[in-house]
């Protein structure tokens, strides 16, 4: 038998156990900190016993599996961990802060070794760490497999007379789960959509058949017509409903709880707080809320930024940081809140002026607003400053402004997903800040405007567009760099002729006309900039299912994916950000 075929399942199971170890160790650390010196860990209480049992069991399971896979170093290191928890369980080891710190480090090491196993199929050399851990804890562990565990002369009951776990109400969840590779879910969704297309074909074929039959009045055709209307048609309709249900369920299956991302933060916050000698209690809620896998996958980075900010600049000495997820109509709100000093807006405005993000005149206006505005009622221009990339690039800016590290990253993340980020600070008289990420529930279905360019249809996501306008041809100017612009109010909006970019022929009907009196322009936003996409016609708005482009097509740029319309037509979805970026580059090189 080739054991390596079990690698994936091994990795995923050890990942879960490492997460469990981290969680339980954090809980244990909290208990240890509450102990008076005389209590210490010599006599672990009931609650602590349960944690130690759990820690021991997870270490033990990793040990057994790692040894079976032939990762003997990992087996040995987890064996040492198992012994440490077992010693502590029997009151033979004082789990002081130093040892706990070392165990946390060990968990990190195991995690990185697991990454190596995942990527390269071989484990990290962790022997030195294991030996050191043995030394500072004094546990006697031998070999990667089972070792004589009564080496210290103390009997070790593996399943004690009264196992502490029996005291906990069994928390066996009624729902059972299986792990499914995400690629399989994507494939399932693809197949469902193909079904959808076939159903549409079936429907239109039926219509054609019926039409023909209605014309042919021969009596012979009557049973045939009967069969189609009374049997085939209802079956086709039913099939359609089943396919819709199936599609809905497949979409549901792609949802994962945000807890998957949240799980790693208690540990991170603890580490950062400790490093900065701050006392932070971290509260997480709403972990069960479910979001599309694609969003959850991307959520980690912006949340790390927000939490770091709260620890670095929010909380001064001790405080509370809350991470909350909650549903608000068809959006998900993810909140990062601290009860710290709040954002020093005056400093933000000062720095923005120094960095030439705003002009002197703007500065004067904003400063006046700051002085006179009631608490928390700031002009959006001020609030937006903290998301400006230039405010956060330099280190000294961070220190003086107090906020701003990577906040532009957070903003970009939210916008990329068709969401927004807001900030509220101060929250009360004492300060405090709250960042709110508003995200769509799913990325797979979006509202889009369908447009026609040449003889092709394209979809423009609502999230990236402002509005559509008819612009008289007379209002379109051509500047020196052969760039068409249209004057709208005070702004000169550059136009992006899609037909030209995509090299599309105009529709046959339009060929005859020399010049059109007006052009249809869809205004799209990219950060603060606005640009106009020139299209031939607006078709309609529709909810579309986004299908990512397969590998070789992905690199083209300008397209966010494809979708299949109700009539079975496959069209491309424009990636507006990318398209503008691309176009601008062309334009610049032309200059």
């Amino acid at each position, binding site marked *: *038998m080739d*054991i390596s075929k*079990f690698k994936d*399942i*091994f990795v995923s*199971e050890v990942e879960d156990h490492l997460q469990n170890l981290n969680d339980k160790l954090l809980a244990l650390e909290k208990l240890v900190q509450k102990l008076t010196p005389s209590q210490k860990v010599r006599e672990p209480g009931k609650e602590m016993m349960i944690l130690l049992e*759990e820690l*021991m*069991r997870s270490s*033990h*399971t990793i*040990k*057994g*599996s790692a*040894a*079976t896979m*032939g990762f003997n170093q990992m*087996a040995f290191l987890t064996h040492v961990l198992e012994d440490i928890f077992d010693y502590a369980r029997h009151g033979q080891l004082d789990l002081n802060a130093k040892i706990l710190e070392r165990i946390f480090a060990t968990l990190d090491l195991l995690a990185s070794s697991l990454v190596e196993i995942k990527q390269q199929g071989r484990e990290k050399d962790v022997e030195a760490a294991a030996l050191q851990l043995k030394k500072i804890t004094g546990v006697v562990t031998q070999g*990667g*497999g*089972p*070792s*004589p*565990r*009564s080496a210290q002369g103390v*009997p*070790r009951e*593996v*399943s004690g007379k009264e*196992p502490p*776990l029996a005291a906990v109400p*069994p928390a*066996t969840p009624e729902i059972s789960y299986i792990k499914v590779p995400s690629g399989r879910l994507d494939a399932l969704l693809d197949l469902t959509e193909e079904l959808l297309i076939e159903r549409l074909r079936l429907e239109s074929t039926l219509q054609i058949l019926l039409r023909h039959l209605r014309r042919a009045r021969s009596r012979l055709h009557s049973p045939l017509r009967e069969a189609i209307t009374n049997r085939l048609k209802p079956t086709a309709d039913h099939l359609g409903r089943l396919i819709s249900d199936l599609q809905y369920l497949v979409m549901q299956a792609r949802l994962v709880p945000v807890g998957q991302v949240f799980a790693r933060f208690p540990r991170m916050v603890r580490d950062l707080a400790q490093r900065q000698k701050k006392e932070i209690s971290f509260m997480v809620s709403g972990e069960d809320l479910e979001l599309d896998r694609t969003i959850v996958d991307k959520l980690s980075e912006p949340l790390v930024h927000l939490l770091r900010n709260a620890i670095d600049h929010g909380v001064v000495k001790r405080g509370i940081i809350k991470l909350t997820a909650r549903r608000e109509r068809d959006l998900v709100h993810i909140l990062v809140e601290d009860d710290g000093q709040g954002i020093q807006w005056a400093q933000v405005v000062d720095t923005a002026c120094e960095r030439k993000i705003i002009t002197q005149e703007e500065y004067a206006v904003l400063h006046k607003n700051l002085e006179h505005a009631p608490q928390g009622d700031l002009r959006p221009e001020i609030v937006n400053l903290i998301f400006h990339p230039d405010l956060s690039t330099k280190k000294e800016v961070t220190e003086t402004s107090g906020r701003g590290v990577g906040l532009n990253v957070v903003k970009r993340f939210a916008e990329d997903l068709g969401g927004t980020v807001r900030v509220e600070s101060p929250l009360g008289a004492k300060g405090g800040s709250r960042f709110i990420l508003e995200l769509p529930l799913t990325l797979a279905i979006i509202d889009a405007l369908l447009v026609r360019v040449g003889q092709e249809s394209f979809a423009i996501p609502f999230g990236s567009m402002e509005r559509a306008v008819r612009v008289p041809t007379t209002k379109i100017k051509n500047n020196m760099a052969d760039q068409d612009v249209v004057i709208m109010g005070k702004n000169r909006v550059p136009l992006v002729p899609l037909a030209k970019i995509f090299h599309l022929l105009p529709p046959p009907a339009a060929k005859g006309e020399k010049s059109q009196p007006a052009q249809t322009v869809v205004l799209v936003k990219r950060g603060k900039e606005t640009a106009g996409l020139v299209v031939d016609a607006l078709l309609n708005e529709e909810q579309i299912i986004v299908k990512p482009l397969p590998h070789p097509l992905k690199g083209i740029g300008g397209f966010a994916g494809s979708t299949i319309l109700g009539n079975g037509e496959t069209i491309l979805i424009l990636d507006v950000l990318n398209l503008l970026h691309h176009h601008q580059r062309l334009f610049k090189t032309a200059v």
Partner: protein
Amino acid sequence: MNKNAKILLVDDSVFMRNVLKNILQEAGLENFEEAGDGEEALKKIAAEKFDLILLDIIMPNKGGLDVLKEIGKQNKVLVISAVGQEKVVEEAKSYGAIGYIVKPFDNQQVVEQVTNVLS
């Protein structure tokens, strides 16, 4: 050996259950049930008769020794565990375990012991 023998694999690690199942499938067996902890195992054992039970020791919601205590005498149980302490092995045998294999195991050893029990 009876290829249709019904086997219950009890281990809290899905990985471990998969590995064991694979070894036994290669040996020609095909009838498996699985349980992820002691309580689940007891429920399944109460519901149907198994020709052989492969049992882990350290598991949540009732460990292997407690399972053995309840059903060890009336069932054929082979313990497969990373716990190698003599005391535990003896205890398991006193509850009726007919064999004790220590992880990491040699595949051949597992196949031999299982075949012995089933023939």
